[in-house]
């Protein structure tokens, strides 16, 4: 580069830009937006999220199959194909759908209750100092407690059956969601808060109309975590108690088959949980994100 710079130029130490003639131009008419250069096929295909995710799923299934065959211990790790067979058998026999519906029924109630409580608690926490202390104290105290520790209390207060399950579900959903919601609320930029309060908003309306949308990315992450932990807890809780055997859910289905060493059925039950997880993530949460935080530019 130096030789080129050297040519006909002032010394680089005190470079002087050349003086060029001025010009004016008539305004160019507006052109149509350039057609995007067509991408090569494989890159175009790559843009479909479902395709990429499908490939990942296939890869995972293959990995499972290979791992299982290599281990050759199908009482501990059945192969993917065995599991799939068991899955379709129990789907067509109606047993998995029935158990799933039983579980979902309880799960959704517990989830909804947890979400509502988390909202109440965080609203309190953003409005008052004592609410803030209460949230932080309760969360740090109760969140680490395993649901089975609450079992005797649940039994005492809510009796057998779904109510106790809902109680432990709330315990699983409430704290992580409240933590995330509160973190989201405290991260709302000051200017946006001031704008909201300038509209005359206060109390619940302020939280609902300003803080919640502004904190939505965190809240969605909290909802996802809550959803997952609700499943974990429900399945574990159905194993331990509450399932009067007539109306068991998926957890019960898994437990029973595990007891009888039908490991392929155990994994079939887990597949159902996995499928529901994928569905909720890719349909529900993904759509929610697309329509909100991504559209608003608050999350990439």
């Amino acid at each position: 580069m130096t030789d080129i710079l050297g040519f006909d130029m002032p010394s680089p130490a005190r470079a002087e830009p050349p003086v060029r003639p001025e010009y004016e131009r008539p305004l160019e008419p507006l052109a149509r937006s350039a057609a995007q250069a067509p991408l090569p096929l494989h890159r175009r295909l790559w843009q479909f999220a479902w395709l990429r995710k499908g490939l990942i799923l296939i890869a995972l299934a293959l990995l499972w199959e290979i791992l299982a065959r290599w281990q050759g211990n199908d009482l501990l790790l059945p192969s993917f194909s065995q599991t799939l067979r068991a899955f379709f058998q129990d789907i067509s026999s109606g047993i998995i759908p029935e158990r799933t519906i039983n579980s979902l029924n309880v799960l959704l109630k517990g989830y909804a209750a947890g979400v509502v409580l988390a909202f109440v608690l965080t609203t309190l926490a953003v409005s008052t100092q004592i609410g803030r202390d209460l949230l932080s104290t309760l969360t740090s105290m109760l969140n680490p407690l395993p649901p089975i520790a609450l079992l005797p209390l649940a039994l005492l207060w809510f009796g057998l059956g779904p109510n106790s399950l809902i109680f432990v579900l709330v315990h699983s959903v409430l704290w992580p969601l409240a933590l995330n919601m509160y973190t989201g609320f405290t991260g709302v930029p000051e200017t946006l808060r001031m704008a909201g309060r300038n509209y005359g908003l206060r109390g619940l309306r302020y939280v609902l109309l300003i803080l919640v949308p502004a904190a939505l990315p965190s809240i969605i992450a909290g909802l996802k975590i809550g959803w997952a932990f609700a499943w974990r807890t429900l399945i574990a809780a159905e194993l331990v108690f509450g399932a009067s055997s007539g109306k068991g859910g998926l957890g019960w289905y898994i437990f029973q088959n595990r007891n009888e060493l039908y490991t392929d059925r155990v994994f079939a039950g887990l597949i159902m949980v996995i499928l529901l997880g994928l569905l909720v993530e890719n349909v529900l949460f993904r759509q929610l994100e697309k329509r909100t935080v991504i559209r608003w530019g608050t999350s990439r």
Partner: protein
Amino acid sequence: SPGQAAAEGRIRLAQQFGIAYLVLDVVRDQHLIEKHGKDAGIDITVEWAQISGATAMNEALLANNLDVVSAGVPPALTMWDRTRGKQDVKLVAALGSLPNYLITTNPDIHTLKDFGPNDRIAVPAAGVGFQSRTLQIEAAKLFGPDEFQKLDAISISLPHPDATAALISGGTEVNSHFSSAPFYYQALAGNQAVHKVISSYDILGGPATFNVLYSTSAFHDENPKTYAAFYAALAEAADWINANKAEAAEVFIRQQNSKLPLELVQQIIDDPENHFTIVPQNTFAYASELAKLGVLKNKASSWQDYFFPEAYGGAGGS
């Protein structure tokens, strides 16, 4: 790594929690396996683990993390059934015959037929597991083979301690419990209203093995000396218990770090209903009933089908 046989001279055992595993406590306390190993000329390292629940036991055995595990008869038979032609799990020995009591606080219940739709029977695992299977056998007798699951509808899964606490203190919907020692002792002592409905001995027609030890054929076949020392240790421990009941109670407290009162432990060991023997009793009732119910795919022709030959020697066995 999986499948690889453990070298002779090591045994990894797991027991569950409770008085029903007293034989193992004694083996451990008196280092009986090591002693019998030395007699046979090998040094045996014994690794003890405590695991709760039959499923975790089974999984640890299948993953070759343990050589010998202990659980109730039905799960052991299920393992035998499912691993035929693979790991070939078989039973090693019984750990004793102890009854399970079906107890209730409902004064109107005296037989199984008295249970109504509002009663709740707590069992550790509703529908499966020792207690439920035993109930099913009796239900099949009482209400006919097709109605064997009749009582499952009012059974609910609840761990023994929670069920016991619920029964003693009342205030919950759980009013009945198919309970094992020491829980039914505590329940009967803790609440006047608690009374026995039926015992597993009544259902099975006499003393019946509660828990058993089981292992894979690979371990059994590849470690003949270790296995022999182990079996001998079990036999010695059972004999010792029957000769030294008072000391046995102390061993239990010591080994399990238990805070149970010594008198209670002693009372349980002294109870003539409880036999600490390694000879299997009435296990075949389960094998045949569970095969009938379709839980077991393989029909055993006698109890010796699912026991390792070392167990055949003792007196009796069924």
